[in-house]
């Protein structure tokens, strides 16, 4: 063997080692992220329910009791009701919030009006206040408007606060070339037409993203519902699950799986959008 061959072999071993280590780390990472989820799934199939009856991570006995009681034993914990409540609130806030956020982002991206810079700085500043300090005031406002203990009150708050997070969407709109707007305007479109016929169809990925974020927030929020909803029947899942103790662990796990599944499904759809990006083929790179 000459020197060159030694070098080649060395490089090869190095490469194999490299691949080996990479996969080891990947398996470890996958384990770290997957194991707690697996644990929750297994726990939901526990027969007894209490966390004290587990053999470590694994339930002593398996069964569908947790799921059964989740949907049938509704006297103390009316899970189906909570689920329906959460869905209603999240869907409504998602629709309204997305609409308002997209509008705000479009205006901030496409118009140059006097108070624009001031508004941008103001939203940035407002975002830095510890949010729940305001909840006392929100609570008082809601009592004044008689919207306590009502789902519409929550929806109102979620959708009204959504436009504050317009920056991501604005950044996206900024990348849609301005010349498309101009071409459309020369073709005879008004700014409203431009928004409806061009900006909206071109920002489908962003619409999905916005809808998703404005859906997940009410879906998993607990401070506001806990504060504004008094009747147990009006609870959202987050508030409801928090009221479960360690002895109801299996039920907690089962409830968690149900609330997590829609979001997980949605997120995997989003990943597709994220990877695809927007193939704006009509525009130079």
């Amino acid at each position: 063997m000459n020197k060159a061959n030694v070098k080649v072999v060395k490089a090869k071993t190095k490469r194999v080692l490299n691949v080996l280590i990479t996969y080891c780390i990947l398996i470890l990472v996958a384990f770290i992220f997957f194991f707690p989820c697996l644990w929750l799934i297994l726990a939901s199939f526990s027969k007894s329910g209490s966390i004290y009856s587990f053999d470590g991570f694994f339930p002593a006995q398996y069964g569908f009791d947790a799921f059964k009681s989740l949907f049938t034993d509704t006297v103390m914990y009316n899970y189906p009701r909570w689920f329906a409540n959460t869905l209603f609130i999240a869907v409504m806030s998602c629709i309204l919030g997305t609409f308002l956020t997209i509008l705000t982002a479009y205006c901030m991206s496409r118009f140059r009006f006097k108070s624009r810079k001031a508004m941008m700085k103001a939203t940035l500043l407002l975002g830095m206040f510890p949010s729940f300090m305001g909840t006392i005031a929100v609570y008082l406002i809601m009592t004044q408007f008689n919207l306590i203990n009502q789902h519409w009150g929550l929806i109102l708050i979620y959708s009204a606060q959504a436009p504050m997070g317009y920056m991501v969407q604005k950044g996206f709109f900024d990348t849609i070339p301005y010349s498309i707007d101009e071409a459309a305007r020369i073709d005879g479109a008004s700014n409203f037409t431009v928004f409806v016929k061009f900006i909206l169809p071109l920002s489908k990925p962003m619409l999905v993203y916005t809808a998703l974020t404005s859906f997940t927030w009410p879906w998993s929020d607990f401070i506001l519902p806990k504060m504004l909803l008094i009747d147990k029947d009006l609870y959202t899942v987050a508030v409801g699950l928090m009221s479960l103790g360690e002895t109801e662990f299996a039920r907690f796990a089962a409830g968690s799986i149900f609330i997590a599944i829609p979001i997980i499904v949605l997120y995997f759809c989003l990943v597709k959008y994220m990877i695809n990006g927007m193939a704006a083929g009509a525009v130079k790179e």
Partner: protein
Amino acid sequence: MANLSLKHIYKVYPNGAKAVNDFNMQIDDKEFIVFVGPSGCGKSTTLRMIAGLEEITAGELKIGDTVVNGMEPKDRDIAMVFQNYALYPHMTIFENIAFGLRMRKVPDVKRYKKDDNKGHRAGEPVLDKNGQEIPVMRKYNKQELAAKVNEAAEILGITEYLKRKPKEMSGGQRQRVALGRAIVRHPKVMLLDEPLSNLDAKLRTQMRSEIVKLHKKLETTFIYVTHDQVEAMTMGTRIVVMKDGFVKQIDTPKNLYKYPANKFVAGFIGTPQMNFFACTLKKSGDKVKIKFTDADAEIAVPYAALMKTTPHYLDGNKNVILGFRAEAVSLDGAGDAKIKVKISHSEELGTETLVYGDLNTEGGEDTRIIIKAGGFRQFEPDAVCTASLDTEQIHLFDAETEESIMPRVPEFNYLDCSVKGGKLTFLGTTETLPPAISCADGKGELLIPVSAVKFGGGIKAKVTDSETVNGKILLTLEINGSRLYALSDKERKGEVSIGIDYKAITLRVGGSEVLPMPRINCLDGALIAEKKDGATVYCLLIGGEKFAAPEEVYTKIFAATTGRKAFNTAFRYEWDAYGLSVGENGISAEVEGMLDYGEEKFARVNAGGQTLYVKTDADLSGTVRIVPDAAKVSVVESERRIRIV
């Protein structure tokens, strides 16, 4: 299909930066105009102002006979092609092209929607009480849309792609779609903003000729913006060269190449770039010696080639820049002025070879010269050869202003003269000086502006040459064997008689100097509105006196200002001597003296510190009142320095 008129167009940003400065141009129907210049020169801004995408700060833009300032882009009947094509990515090619049509309505008459029981058929016009058709605006229907889109697609050869989306097409095809979108509406003016700069070199050449063909076919006015001078030269019927917001020259490609008005245009147009060298000129006999400042070289040029040059450049002191193109120099000894060149390297391009060399054989200051030689040629690096320059093809520029010092239309005729007892002798003729010009006796020089040579006078001359420059005719006259340039509106031949407009001449004799009478009188003032008999009268307010302004003047002022700014800002009003007269109600002024030019008399007066020249028939003295003719005023807004009228 329309002509365009741009008058005093300005673009001033709120921070005071001027992107476009006093742009004036008349564009005829069916012209292919190219705006060219380096980035940031204001060419795109001007185009966008024509499109209506950018607001016009001041000035008047007409498309056809309509003033379109402030009009929405869609109402201007223009179409625009963008640099990045700006196709609508989510629409098919058909929809891309059809969108503009869908947004528009066509005039039609009201028609029955379906057959009815009174015997009316669907599609039949509805008649009103008087039996007249009722005009309505309606949208294009499907068949019309398809027909129009197909027509445009056929012209551009993209019929088979109509169902595709833009991202499925190549750059060249996208460019065609963008063109199709523009032509489908049959706009009056096509605006193209660097449409080819995203294409590769080969495709660019191909699309270039296609756009030219398209222009011929459509017979529409094209305005094309590019930074590429080759595109400009090959496509435009006329080219506007811009730099830093100023128009540097507007002319045909040929004239830009042959007669660049300044060093910028000379350097910008043509490849390889023109050779420039700092030098001084010295006239000796019938030759002018050109001495290179940075190199030990000197060439002699016949004075005849520099006839139009201002004489004071020829004294050997003034710094000028000599320019000549690579093809004006030869290494084969074809030219008449020899220079030594040390060759550094050469580029063989096939049909020609570009030779790079240095005038300075010893090294030192950078005196790079590029020479074009025909065919494949090999040159030894560091060899010193003799290059010969064709003196007919040289250009000279002022070193400071960079303006050409041998313009096509010279500003002045420079003549030797002598004065004796109020008589002026020049070109072998003698004329009596008017009383306004008092001058010591002696020999000296006389500057007669080319425009001050009038036809019909006491001096006999012979036309030896005439050339048309920018719509005017420059005549070369011969008087007693000497040369004189004159401008004429019409073609003249043979014997003519000429006279001199004495108020425009400069005379330097025996240490004394007579300057021409200033042509422009400036007065600062404002604009006010006054109620008079129930009607509002708009007046120029100058020195406390009011002069009713004609409609054209105040509407232009209003158009160029926002809010009530027209009434709150200062203007500079300008008149020539004929726009001012002496009357009863006017600006108070002290007469300082009378200027009698024989046929005409002018009074020099002082109005509040401003010296004015006023045409008058009588001899004036003491205090007079000056009445300006508001119809002849030109107006400059003082604050932003914007010429309005």
